[in-house]
């Protein structure tokens, strides 16, 4: 009964085009945002912030990026890790060049470097599609992670070949580095992710999003309608890589505090891809659900035995989580190829007509 549109008449196309046309959704999202911005910082433990919320948010952003490319534009990419790396190393160089510039600005700027690199590696997509393109992006992945180690300039010639995050303050409060409190970092990550998610939502519901989906669904027809395939695909690569780049920069500066080439290896790319699949190709919400599930699951699995008083080797838990994640991917593809997001939709649909079956 609670979830009904009855009596909510839309008097303008504006109202109908809104992000959340249904009142209950608007209320819901407000409550959730309030909770995320106020409730969580007050209640959550530092472990919850550092090892659950911040990672999930960062990975969600990367997943969103990949989803724009793979889910919305239909271009399969295995180079996500590499593009995240570009963002991270770019941000590191920026902090050394402009030590006094607001770190958040730098994090966002580093996205543009990733976008540039992404566009370059997107060029083959003009000629090749599908699995072939996936291989092209693999080339990007391996080439980039090679660069991160082979070009010492990128990590300021540190003997450790890794990048450490200097402490940066904002209005006197440390926001990066070891002294920055988890809450501060969480709030920054949350704000950036919320902002960029809103932007993504706007893009996909507008002209650009439609051209992307048109290319995904039937590129030839799209062409005959007057859509320039090349520009559309490259734009998708650029935007997607931008998101991945920002995610990578946040991963280093607001989450791990240190990174090396290996932090952005092929497995990272696969992990993000799994999140997108499980969450739902072509759904922004899905990117978040997927990230939460794939990242959260091992943590829960690791802790669950202790919770039930069992003693399981942490290694075993790790392996079990592999098995379960794998099974989950297959399971979701079978019951709902469109991922968690679609399940959510279906749930809402049921709720909407409840108590009647349809």
């Amino acid at each position, binding site marked *: 009964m609670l979830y009904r549109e009855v009596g909510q008449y839309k008097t303008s196309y504006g109202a109908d085009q809104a992000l959340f046309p249904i009142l209950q959704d608007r209320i*819901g*999202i407000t409550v*959730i*945002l309030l*909770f*995320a911005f106020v409730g*969580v910082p007050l209640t*959550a*433990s530092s*472990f*919850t912030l*550092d*090892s*659950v*919320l911040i*990672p*999930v*948010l960062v990975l*969600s952003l990367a997943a969103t990026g990949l989803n724009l490319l793979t889910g919305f534009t239909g271009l399969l990419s295995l180079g996500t890790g590499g593009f995240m790396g570009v963002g991270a190393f770019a941000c590191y160089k920026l902090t050394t060049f402009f030590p006094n510039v607001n770190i958040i600005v730098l994090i966002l700027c580093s996205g543009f470097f990733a976008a540039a690199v992404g566009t370059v590696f997107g060029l083959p997509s003009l000629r090749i599609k599908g699995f072939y393109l996936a291989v092209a992006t693999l080339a990007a992945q391996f080439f980039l*992670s*090679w660069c991160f*180690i*082979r070009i010492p300039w990128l990590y*300021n010639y*540190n*003997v*450790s*070949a*890794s990048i*450490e995050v*200097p*402490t940066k303050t904002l209005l006197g409060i440390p926001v990066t*580095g*070891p002294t920055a409190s988890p809450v501060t970092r969480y709030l920054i990550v949350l704000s950036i992710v919320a902002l960029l998610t809103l932007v993504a939502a706007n893009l996909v519901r507008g002209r650009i999003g439609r051209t992307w989906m048109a290319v995904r669904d039937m590129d030839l027809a799209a062409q005959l309608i007057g859509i320039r395939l090349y520009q559309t695909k490259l734009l998708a690569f650029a935007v997607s890589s931008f998101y991945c780049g920002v995610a990578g920069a946040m991963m280093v500066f607001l989450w*791990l*505090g*240190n990174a*090396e*080439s*290996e932090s952005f290896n*092929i497995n990272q790319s696969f992990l993000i891809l799994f999140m997108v699949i499980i969450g739902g190709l072509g759904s922004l*919400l899905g*990117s*978040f*659900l997927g990230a*939460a*599930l794939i*990242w*959260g699951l091992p*943590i*829960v699995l*690791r*802790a*669950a035995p*202790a*919770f039930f008083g069992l003693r399981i080797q*942490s*290694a075993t838990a*790790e*392996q079990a989580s592999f098995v379960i994640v794998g099974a989950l991917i297959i399971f979701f593809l079978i019951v709902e190829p469109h991922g968690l997001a679609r399940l959510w939709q279906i749930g809402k649909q049921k709720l909407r007509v409840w108590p009647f079956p349809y």
Partner: protein
Amino acid sequence: MHLKKLALSAAAASVVGLSASQAVAQDTLFVPLFTYRTGPFANSGIPIANGMHDYFNMLNARDGGIGGVKLAIQECETGYKNEKGVECYDSVKSKNPLVITPYSTGITLALIPKASVDRIPVFSMAYGLSASAVGADFPWIFNPPATYWDGMSIVLKYIAGKEGGFANLKGKKIGYIYFDGGYGLEPIPLLDQFAKEYGFSVTKYPVPPAQMQNQSGLWLSVRRDRPDWMVMWGWGAMNPTAVQEAAKTGYPMDRFIGVWWSGSEDDARPAGAGAKGYLSLNFNAVGAGYPAIKDIEKYVIAKGNSQTPKGTVGDNFYNRGVMNSAVIAEAIRNAQRITHKKVVNGADVRRGLETLKISDERWKQLGLPGFAAAIQVTCQDHNGHHSAYVQQWDGTKWVKVSDWISPMKEKVLPLLYGAANDYVSKNQPWPKRTEACDDKTL
């Protein structure tokens, strides 16, 4: 809506965190062990994990812990991944851990800044950031008995010895095959410096992580370049592959020498007879013939409280794990002695580590006579730059083929301080050391 999901997992995690912390009772000594029994580095990780684990369990079973206080051991699987390592750290840091053993250079680097702030000592035994040996800049980080730079200087000393003096290195060609990451890159400055001083040339063979098991192309280059010596800084699946490829290309094994992380039985064994003669550094004894290890077999393995496979007790990396735990245990005893407390915390153990002194005599008392060189750590020098020896694979086991060789401190220290300053200057503002030095007060 996504945040609902987050909130859920958050709730789950916090509940979990709670229950876990209850697991660690108040009157225990909590020592988390970061281990990796999964992934491409597990072959090196598993025996070390077993050794560390078994020794502590033995102390619990035999002596009822340390100073009458039981040890609470908790393994955390990192899979040698930095994210997992940091997650492990976050999951234990609130439970008053006495010391962190990352067992990964990458994770150590990630934890150095955090631990210094959270006031938790990090014990990275002969790995991690060499520069962290400078106590003035890294009061919370300890990496005895020797740094990679010490290791490299020892290797070169050994080579020079075989060639009949450093003078004879002139015009020689030394090949350096290394894991293409921070760990393998670190010794290069020292190697290059020596090359300049003694007029030998260095050829570098990086092994990308993705290529650890596909080195045939690289060893072709070795065959072309014909280095007089090959030095290896390898880890995980890279080691056995390298030894095998060396054997294949017919490189003289007694001129192929690995660092102490490239010296496990599993590194040499797969190459079969071909590996005969392969050399590697080591700073702990190999073999099970020590009272303490006998006790492990008696109190732990015989009781079935261990997942150590039969026959691996006394293997090099198992003993490395034992040594790791023995040193930590000694540091805890130290801390109890200094603070006159039974239940010590991380800050106390830091002091314990800074006053660490294990003489040959003490090693004997610990039931590990001649197991390792005497170790001394001071508040200026968190490493000690101790000696290591060279061991050789005889086809079935490791044999000690050299005396204890001391590192060339005079060459290492300048680099060390340079690197420390570099690190500190790049990570401004770096916290000034506030902790007092006990070795003065004691």
